[in-house]
C-alpha cells in the first residue's frame, strides 16, 4: 500500500542501484531533508538545539564513523572517545593557531588529523582481530586521554587544563562561542551530518565498501579473491576516524564550547557510541541515526516525562532512566539482534505487501 512498486519502473542500472529505489521512500527522504533544512532552523530554540538536536546530530556522525569500522569492516574498536578527543584537540589547536582560517576548514582538517592517528592505532589490526583488537584500541583510548591531560601544549598551557572554543564565524554569523544563535549551530552540524551520511553511504556501496565487507565476512577468502587486507583495514580505520574526528571537533567547538578530556572523552563515550552502533544496526547508515536518536533522545524524553510531567524526585527519575534504557536495550536486542535498522527494514517489507500479504 505505502511502498507500492507497481508502476515504479527502472530503465537503467543507475536507477536500479540508487539508495532509495522505491519512489515513496525517495520522496519521504526528500521531505525529511526539506524539513531539516528549511523548516527546523526557523522554529528551533536554545533548548531544542542544546539538549536534543546538537547531541543527536553529532553522535550520528560519530556512529556513522564507528559503523564503518565495526559494522562494515568488522574491526571492533573501543577507541572512539580517544579519537573524538583527537578531533577536538586538533580543532582547538587549529582554531587558536590560525584564527583567520574558517572554522569549517578547521573541522575538516581535524578530521584528517584524526584519520592519521586512527591509521596509526589501526596498524595492530593487521595481526590481531576480534576481542584482541578491541583491547588494543582500548589502549588507544586510555593513551590519548592521558596524553591530552599530560602535555600542556595541547591545552595551550591553560591553568585548569580545559580547552574552550573562542568565537568563530561562518559568513559573519558566529557558530562557536556564547553568542551563537541556535539555528547557526544547528545548520553547521546538519550540513556536516548530511555530507557525512551521503559520503559514507556512497563509500560503503562502492568498491571500498565491498572490500571492507569482504574482510568482515571472511578475511582469508577476501584475500584469495584479491582484496589487500592492509589497504582495506587501514582505509576503514582512516575513514572511520575521519568521521569520528569531525564529530569530536563539532562536539567540542559547536556543542559544548569547553571540554575537559577525562570527563567528556572518557571510556564511557566509546561505549556509548558502540552501543549506538549495535542498537541502531551494524552495517547500516540509517542504523547510525536510529541508534544515536535512541540513546540521546530517550533519556531526555524520560527525564521530561518523569520529572517534568509526573513531578517525581530527580534522583529516582535518574535511577529509573538507567533501568528503563537498559531494559529497552536488552528487549530490543532480544527481539531484533540486528538493531533498529533491521526493524525498520522488516516494517518496510510488511508495508510493501500490506494490506494483502501473501
Amino acid at each position: 500500500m505505502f511502498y507500492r512498486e507497481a508502476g515504479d519502473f527502472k530503465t537503467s542500472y543507475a536507477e536500479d542501484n540508487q539508495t532509495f529505489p522505491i519512489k515513496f521512500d525517495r520522496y519521504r527522504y526528500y521531505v525529511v531533508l526539506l524539513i531539516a533544512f528549511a523548516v527546523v532552523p526557523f522554529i528551533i530554540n536554545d533548548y531544542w538545539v542544546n539538549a536534543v538536536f546538537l547531541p543527536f546530530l553529532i553522535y550520528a556522525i560519530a556512529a556513522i564513523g564507528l559503523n564503518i569500522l565495526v559494522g562494515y569492516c568488522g574491526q571492533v574498536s573501543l577507541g572512539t572517545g580517544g579519537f573524538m578527543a583527537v578531533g577536538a584537540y586538533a580543532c582547538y589547536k587549529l582554531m587558536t593557531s590560525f584564527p583567520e582560517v574558517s572554522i569549517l576548514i578547521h573541522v575538516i582538517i581535524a578530521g584528517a588529523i584524526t584519520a592519521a592517528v586512527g591509521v596509526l592505532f589501526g596498524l595492530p589490526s593487521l595481526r590481531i582481530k576480534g576481542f584482541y583488537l578491541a583491547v588494543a584500541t582500548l589502549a588507544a583510548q586510555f593513551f590519548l586521554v592521558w596524553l591530552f591531560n599530560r602535555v600542556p601544549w595541547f591545552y595551550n598551557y591553560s591553568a585548569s587544563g580545559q580547552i574552550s572554543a573562542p568565537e568563530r564565524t561562518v559568513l559573519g554569523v558566529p557558530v562557536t562561542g556564547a553568542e551563537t544563535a541556535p539555528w547557526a549551530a544547528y545548520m553547521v552540524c546538519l550540513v556536516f551530518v548530511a555530507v557525512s551520511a551521503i559520503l559514507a553511504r556512497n563509500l560503503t556501496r562502492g568498491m571500498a565498501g565491498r572490500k571492507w565487507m569482504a574482510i568482515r565476512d571472511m578475511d582469508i577468502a577476501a584475500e584469495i579473491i584479491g582484496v589487500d587486507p592492509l589497504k582495506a583495514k587501514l582505509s576503514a580505520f582512516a575513514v572511520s576516524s575521519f568521521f569520528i574526528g569531525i564529530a569530536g571537533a563539532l562536539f567540542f567547538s559547536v556543542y559544548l564550547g569547553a571540554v575537559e578530556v577525562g570527563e567528556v572523552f572518557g571510556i564511557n563515550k566509546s561505549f556509548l557510541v558502540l552501543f549506538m552502533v549495535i542498537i541502531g544496526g551494524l552495517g547500516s547508515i540509517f542504523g547510525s541515526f536510529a541508534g544515536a536518536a535512541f540513546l540521546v533522545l530517550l533519556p531526555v524524553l524520560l527525564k521530561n516525562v518523569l520529572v517534568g510531567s509526573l513531578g517525581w524526585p530527580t534522583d529516582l527519575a535518574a535511577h529509573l532512566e538507567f533501568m528503563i534504557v537498559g531494559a529497552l536495550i536488552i528487549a530490543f536486542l532480544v527481539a531484533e539482534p540486528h538493531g533498529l535498522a533491521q526493524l525498520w527494514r522488516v516494517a518496510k517489507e510488511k508495508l510493501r505487501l500490506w494490506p494483502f500479504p501473501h
Partner: protein
Amino acid sequence: MRKTLMTAALGAVMAAGPAIADLVVVDTSYRTGPYAANGIPFSDGYQDYFTLINERDGGVGGEMIKVVECETGYNTEKGVECYEATKGEGTLVYQPLSTGITYQLIPKATADGISLHTMGYGRTSAKNGAVFKNVFNYPANYWDGASHAITHILNENGGDISGRKIALVYHNSAYGKEPIRTLEELSKKHGFELTLLPVDHPGQEQKSQWLQIRREKPDNVIMWGWGVMNQVAIQEAVNIRYPMDQFIGIWWSGSENDVKAAGDKANGYKALTFHNLGSDYPLYDDMAKYVVDAGKAAGAGDQVGSVLYNRGMYAAMLAVEAMRTAQELAGTSAINAAQMRDGMEALEMTEAKMAGLGLPGFGPEFKVSCENHGGDGMGAVSQWNAEKGEFELITDYFQSDQDVIGALVAEDSAAFATENGIEASCN
C-alpha cells in the same frame, strides 16, 4: 521511531511548561553517580533553607522562592541540558556545584544575563568582576584554599618551610588542577618542594600515588579530591600510616562521608573550610520546626548539620541575602535576573546580619564589588574528631596570601578577556 520520539518529547516539554512569577532558583544537584555521597547533603541543605524561608517568612520580600531541581550526575552534558531546560523559567541564579559545568556555563550564562554563584569552586579568576560580569565565587576560591593550606603549614612550623616536601594529590581534571599554579608560586616564595600526584576520575584507583607517598615521605600532603576519591585517599593514607595531622584536604575533601569509612584511624585529618560547622545555631531550631518536623525536608532529611549540608545552606543563605539586596536596589520585590546580578554585586555580609539570621559567626564577613566578586579570601582549618564524630574548627578565619593570588587573578582574567574579546570595565 525517531518521529514518534520527538513528538512525544515535544509533548512532554509542552506539558512541563514555564511557571509564572516567583523567584526561581535552580538546584543542579547530583544524587546519583560517583559523587552522589557529597552531592546529596549539599542539595538537601540548599533546598531546605529556601523551604524554611518560604514556610517561616512567606518568601523574600513577600515573593515565594521556587526551587527547580535538575539532576546532572556531575556530568557536563547533562548540566548543559539542565541549564537550557531551566533558564526559560526566569531563573535568577545557578549554583552548578561542578567546576566542569561551571566552565560550560560561564559564557552561556553571561550571554543570557543570568548569574552563576560558584561558591568555593569554578573558575578562580572569575573573582575579577570587571571581566566576569555574571560570575560570582565569594566567599573564597581555590587559590585562596591553596594559600590557606600553605599558611597553616607555615604557622605550624614557625614560619619557615624551606626545604620541606609537600605533595599535592589531586583529581586529574580542571577542578584538581586549579591550585597548581598557586602552589608553584608559593613554593617559589617559601622554598618548599612540590610533588604533583594526579588521580584519574572517579578516583578509586590510587595505589601507585600512595606508594609514591610512602616512598618519598613528604612532610605534608594536600588533597584536592571530591566524591569517592576522598574516601579512598583517606583510607590509603591510613593504610600507609601517614600522620593524619599532616594531611590537609581542600573544603570539598572534608565531610563526614570522606572520613567515616576509614574509622578511628582517620582521627586528626584536617580540611579547610570557609564557613562554620555543626548544628549549634538558633537557625537550626527553626529548621527543625518548619522544615524537618513538618516533613518538608529535601531528600531523606537525615543530613541536617553535616558539613556539606551546612555548605549548601550557606549557599542558599547568600542567595537569599543577595535577593534582599537586589529587591532594595531595584525597589521592587519581583526582581529579574539582571537585578539579581546587581544585588549579588552589592552584597555585604556582616556579623550583625548573620546573627540576625540565627547564624552568628557562620561565615566570614565580606563585601562584594565589581572589582572583587570573590570575597576577601578568608578561610579556616577544621580537624576530624573521630570520637565525637564531627569536624571541629581549630583556627580562626585567616586571609590568604593576597599578593600572590591577586597577581594570578589579574593575569588569568586578562588572558580570558583577550581570548574572548571582552573589555574589562567597572562602570
